[in-house]
């Protein structure tokens, strides 16, 4: 199988680590060669963060470059736009509609673009927008946005839902399994 590329993007502190852990676990269990790459340190402090997940028969480079991503899963609205050049032609963006103002917007040096998802659509991008924050809150924790988005991503894969749920169970602490399974279902079914 040719390598498939998934980017997980968002704001430092939003929980992309758990999402990539879940995907890595699932895909290794499915028998693929897998590479997951992220940057630690300075950029994690509220900055724009990106994680690359690649899987296939044999994966070499750990990073995803311009025009290569099959999926961009974005935890925040404009972060999807920031990395849009990395999307493959015909690729899909799954985006949480949550808005988190970056510092230049907070201090009035820049505007938060209001209709960025529409612009993506007019450029031919498949945009799957989802209010993951509301669904996560509904599931029992606003922190479960990451798993809501993984639930939505699962719709695009042939891997049975039970296997995704099994990976969720392996990746979260026992006390949070129920909330996260609910979050996953809400993402998958809404």
């Amino acid at each position: 199988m040719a390598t498939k590329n998934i980017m997980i993007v968002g704001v430092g502190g939003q929980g992309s680590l758990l999402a990539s852990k879940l995907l890595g676990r699932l895909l290794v269990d499915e028998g693929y060669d897998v590479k997951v790459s992220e940057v630690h340190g300075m950029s994690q402090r509220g900055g724009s963060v990106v994680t690359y997940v690649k899987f296939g028969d044999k994966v070499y480079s750990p990073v995803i470059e311009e025009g290569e991503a099959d999926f961009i899963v974005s935890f925040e609205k404009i972060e999807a736009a920031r990395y849009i050049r990395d999307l493959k032609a015909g690729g899909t963006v799954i985006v949480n509609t949550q808005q988190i103002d970056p510092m230049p917007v907070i201090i009035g040096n820049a505007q938060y673009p209001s209709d960025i998802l529409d612009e993506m659509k007019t450029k031919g991008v498949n945009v799957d927008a989802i209010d993951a924050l509301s669904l996560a809150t509904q599931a029992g924790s606003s922190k479960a946005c990451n798993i809501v988005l993984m639930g939505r991503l699962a719709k695009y894969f042939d891997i049975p839902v039970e296997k995704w749920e099994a990976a969720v169970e392996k990746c979260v602490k026992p006390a949070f399994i129920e909330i996260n399974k609910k979050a996953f279902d809400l993402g998958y079914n809404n």
Partner: protein
Amino acid sequence: MKELMIGNAALARGLYEAGCSVISSYPGTPSTEITEEFAKFDDTYCEWAPNEKVAAETAFGASLRGKRSACCMKHVGLNVAADPLFTMSYTGVNAGMIICVADDPGMHSSQNEQDSRHYAIAAKVPMLEPSDSQEALDFAKIAYEISEQFDTPVFIKMCTRVAHSQSIVEKGERTEFAKEYVKNPKKYIMAPANAIARHPFVEERTAKLTEYAETSPLNRIEEGSGEKDFGIITSSTSYQYVKEVFGGSVSVLKLGMVNPLPVKLIKEFAEKVGSVYVIEELDPIIETHCRNIGVDVQGKDKFSILGEFSQKTIADSFGLEKKPAVTLDTDIPVRPPMMCAGCPHRGMYYVLAKNKLTVLGDIGCYTLGSMPPLNALDMTLCMGASVSGLHGYNKAGKEETENKTVCVIGDSTFIHSGVTGLINIAYNQSNSTVIILDNSITGMTGHQQNPTTGLNVKGDPAGKVDLESLCRSVGINSVRVVDPYNLEECERVVKEELAKNEPSVIISRRPCVLLKYVKPKKPLHVNTDKCKGCKRCMKFGCPAISFRDGHAVVDNTLCIGCGVCAGLCPFEAFESEVE
């Protein structure tokens, strides 16, 4: 069992399986997780040292006693450990010793882009360079064999993309290792007479290691299908990019040992493939070696000396077709990293910026105080430089600068190399005010314990440096402690200490809000009837506060209820949630 591991975890696993018994390190991105992962093993010793020099010497001591050891650091940490390094090359080792060093091309979390391979060459120490997690694990074992066989410390060089990329690893079992210590002054006492006798050994060792490099499986030729009329010499993560771009269509000489470099193997490869490209990140080390041995190659004229590579940078250099990509017309505002909501550093920075002080900074989360809207910093150089730099600044500026200049340095950085600068301030009496931003943890690298926290690398109780006593004992008579959430207190104490005609230390103490034991309070909210839209709170630079429809708004997913903003607002518009 196969599992995904970041390169650093795999390297830790390799050290463990090879029987490494002692690791001493100082944290630094992207090297930190090697030590953190090793600390999870029960039957070994692991520690955070105050700095990389201490770590390297500790590892050396363990090797001398007959146990396999390692020390881990980032590239700039190797500068600190350089002093023991150059002479350890002369003494060699007893049991094997590995120095793990992680470079940061692209400077994701570093102040420069130096190439650690220069140290391997300069100190005449062999260096291995894995290209993924499995190699990181395997190379650790080989490195110990090389260390003992050739009587030398050995480098394992990581880079960000190998250190922090997860790939599949097959784990093995641990093999214990121990040797006797036998007194040997000619080998271990590097006084001139012994060192003079030892230097020829170092040169002979390099010659033998070069022979080893010719045939070692660390270096391998991967024959291409012959479609291309050129070959590529590469190593580390660049190898992965080359394979991604060319697959099996091109012949590759993959170097796992980057010092010393082979001669015959490179000549043999060059003869086979016709023209040769050298693809290596940062400096032209392999390229220069090829030229020195008479092999004509193309390198930095085609592939940048700056930053990281990727499959794209390499494909572009070869003029390959670009992949179609979407571009948007709208400008996306940048999202730089910043201090967290509730960060205790912010209060002190607000006071320093408000009073328009010159602030010499240091290395840590608090470097982010340089960002808008606080713009609170004037200088950041290296670990500890804020303190010694302030001393020099005030010796040059005298009364023109002494009462309007301070330095800021974190607790861990102060112990690393700030305290020596403070001793200089006390000894040579500059009228300097040093602010220690004590958030009770090593923050930026992801919460490592340090000598001021009272806990060790495993989180168990440990010795604890008392910062106040330490500062007093080196000769600082005026040592004050403030709470950075109390802006009024901070401002008063800073002004008082600057006005004094003697050296002083202000300890700005409050734990990092990301620490588990720091329990967030309920988020504040803005009473829009009271908020006049004056934007004074916007100057504080808290990511939880933004401005919408003429009023300040608090993001309740980010706010931790520190309440400092409430003290800033002249209209008392920030209110606590009614319980």
